[in-house]
């Protein structure tokens, strides 16, 4: 990263990318690295401009589908190859690394995954299209009539969080489907969204197709009020505020769990479970935060802690640190929260070892492993943004109840009835069968396919269809 470090000290400007070009505002917010140093000056969009942008987007027709696909492919390349806003891809990754907390290789891996998300957005989106639905009414009128996959609205607001650069992948599918998108980036990590939208524009998308409008929290209602649909990412607070709206899809908390059936607690299973806990810096919603063990959960927790400790090893003070690097204040708040809330749990790794000051500033968090004795203990729902896992005993008699309210459950079991039950449990979003919870790709549904939310099916029947049906 030597070349990248040359620029990583400069404060870069991140202006708005509006429906009418680039605009810097008087309202600016400084984006700080986890070590406290200023990295970017972020323009903030006033409500009037946010509204003007989205109304202009509503009035603009989308590019034709094939052009969108072509421009997305080019934008993906430009995202990787171009100097954008003065930054090469490598320099861009250095900035993201310094705010996001992901280590250097994870930052690059996730940033490359964004490029894939841009290029593959049309195909990923199309996976949600039902068998009975065509992409275009023109096809439908040629035949006996068909469902046609149709946008539910024209404009989408994307209110992003900063956990991972790949948070862009959702709204990119909307863009691929012809939505005009207003992106409100995370103010903690506003770099990736900027680079994506600038690359889209360089590749041929018009200013009205995707706009970049950072705002404070106070600016969110204007975005949600003007756009037809919205994707909003956040925790329980966001879920409770917007979860009931049919026009808002909330990317909510994960509470992802792994169930270790008897016979799966051996050394060969531990690697995948450790991976589920600690991949992606342990900050993603697909990271396992609770493990339910059929058998000796305390011994299993000790073994898992051993593997995680070994993986963290000497890395924690290098650029390869396992957990995320966060600000000192964030570390203090999280560890303080653990100390208070986890007093009835047993800390398999002493809390003092969970926070390690990093030589470049900030604190590296995790791994943390706790045990509780009751599979219904509320602590199992604790989801913190670093490798932190709660281990409890489980028996067949406990059933699916302790596994409820999970984005992903990895069932390491041969019990087909249990897998059936997990699949049919409404509060479980995704089921893995002996595959790490972090294993997924953009082709799989995450909280359903995005197309389920963005699209609807309309019957289109042409004159060639023939006689009326009755």
């Amino acid at each position, binding site marked *: 990263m030597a070349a990248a470090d040359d620029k990583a000290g400069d404060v870069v400007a991140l202006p708005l990318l509006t429906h009418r070009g680039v605009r810097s*505002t*008087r*309202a600016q917010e400084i984006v700080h690295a986890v070590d406290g140093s200023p990295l970017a000056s972020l323009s*903030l*969009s*006033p*409500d*009037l*401009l946010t*509204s*003007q942008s989205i*109304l202009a987007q509503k009035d603009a027709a989308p590019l034709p589908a094939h052009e969108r696909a072509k421009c997305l492919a080019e934008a993906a390349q430009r995202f990787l190859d171009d100097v954008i806003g003065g930054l090469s891809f490598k320099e861009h990754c250095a900035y993201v690394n310094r705010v996001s907390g992901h280590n250097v290789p994870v930052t690059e891996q996730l940033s490359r995954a964004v490029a894939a998300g841009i290029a593959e957005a049309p195909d990923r989106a199309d996976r949600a299209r039902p068998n009975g639905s065509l992409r275009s009414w023109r096809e439908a009128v040629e035949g006996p009539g068909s469902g046609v996959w149709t946008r539910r609205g024209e404009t989408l607001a994307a209110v992003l969080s900063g956990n991972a650069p790949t948070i862009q992948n959702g709204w990119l599918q909307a863009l691929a489907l012809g939505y005009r998108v207003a992106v409100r980036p995370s103010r903690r990590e506003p770099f990736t969204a900027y680079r994506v939208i600038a690359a889209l524009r360089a590749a041929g998308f018009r200013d009205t197709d995707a706009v970049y409008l950072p705002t404070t929290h106070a600016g969110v*209602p204007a975005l949600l*009020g003007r756009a037809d649909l919205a994707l909003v990412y956040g925790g329980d607070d966001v879920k409770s*505020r917007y979860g009931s709206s049919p026009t808002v899809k909330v990317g909510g908390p994960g509470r992802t769990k792994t169930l270790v059936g008897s016979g799966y607690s051996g050394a060969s299973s531990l690697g995948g479970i450790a991976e589920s806990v600690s991949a992606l810096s342990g900050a993603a919603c697909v990271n396992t935060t609770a493990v339910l063990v059929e058998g000796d959960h305390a011994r299993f927790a000790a073994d898992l802690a051993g593997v995680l400790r070994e993986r963290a090893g000497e890395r924690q003070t290098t650029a390869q640190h396992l957990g995320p690097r966060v600000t000192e204040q964030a570390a203090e708040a999280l560890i303080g929260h653990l100390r208070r809330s986890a007093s009835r749990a047993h800390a398999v790794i002493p809390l003092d070892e969970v926070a390690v000051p990093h030589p470049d500033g900030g604190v590296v968090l995790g791994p943390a492993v706790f045990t509780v004795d009751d599979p219904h203990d509320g602590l199992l729902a604790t989801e913190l943004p670093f490798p932190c896992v709660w281990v409890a005993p489980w028996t067949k008699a406990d059933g699916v109840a302790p596994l409820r309210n999970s984005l992903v459950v990895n069932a390491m079991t041969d019990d087909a009835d249990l897998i059936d039950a997990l699949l049919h449990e409404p509060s479980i979003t995704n089921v893995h069968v002996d595959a790490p919870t972090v294993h997924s790709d953009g082709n799989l549904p995450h909280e359903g396919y995005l197309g389920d939310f963005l699209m609807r099916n309309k019957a289109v029947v042409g004159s060639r269809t023939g006689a009326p049906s009755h």
Partner: protein
Amino acid sequence: MVRSLLDLENAATIDPEEYLQAALRWHFSEETGSRLWLDLAGQLGFDPLTDIRSFADLGKFPDIAGHLRDRPVADLIPKGLAHEPAPSVFETGGTTGSPKRLVYTDRWVQRALAWKTAELKEAGFPAGEPWLVAMPAGPHAFGNTTRLQAKALGSVLHTVDLDPRWVKKLIASGESPGTYVAHLVDQLGHIIRTQNIAALTTTPPILSELLLHEGLTEPLRRNLKYLALAGAHLDDDTCELIADALPGTVIQNIYGSTMVLTTAKLRTPTAPPLSAVYEGYSPFVVFTVLDPETGEPVAYGERGQVRMTHVSSGMFIPNNLERDSAIRVPAAEGSVGDALQSPEPLAAFDGEPVIQGVY
């Protein structure tokens, strides 16, 4: 000879300190003072007639906001004016708790009307042409005083009423003010489409909403010569966007407080809002910019909390801390207190979160 407050109020030139002493004698004399101040006089811990030597000393007085909320209005009226026509009573918006009542005597209303009419003319107000005001009337002063101004300026007044308290309730309960704003825009739209509105006074959020309707922006762009924005904070970026949308229109950002019974005077009425300097009406209405921790004035060019005082025969509001901060600027020659630049809301005041709405 010692001149009375009523004489001094109408004098061509007024010495501020002489005026202050006359006002203290007026408000703290059994014959002329209000029940409220006569009651409070014994609890002050100082003698207002001997211990208040200058405007800087007014900070010794307590904030009387609580009394303005709860006392009968009769207690607020100075006995010295008992024989005069009954005053108008207007209320604050109730942004920081229940509303406060202020007494607007005819003497004050006429004085403020003369100031404002002259200033509007100086700013290029299109006197004689239709004026649309969408500001709170009812219990609030703004909508009522603009009616008098329109008469004085010879302009036909069109109005749409705002209920700021309802909007604040909506927002506080987590609801969107969207339907209410749409209701206002419907009413405004009817007027803008059918009348050649040359002057418009409203709040920044409502104007922003109007500008999102091409059918309304177009007639405004064609006819509007004067735009006053008041009642909610106008940020610099929004102000720029508005100026972009309405080229050639004089835009004023009005700053004031019901607590001092008027709005501030713009040092240069035609200056763009971003550089506006706001003056009081010394010695009637005086601003000070304070460090909220120490209560002492901040240095010129620094931001502090705004204190406003109102001293007239009708009311004595010696120490009213506003829910705003501003940059302290030297007051005009011969004036007491400070002038203000870039006023904006404090994040929270007195424990109650400050809710900005459409007003």
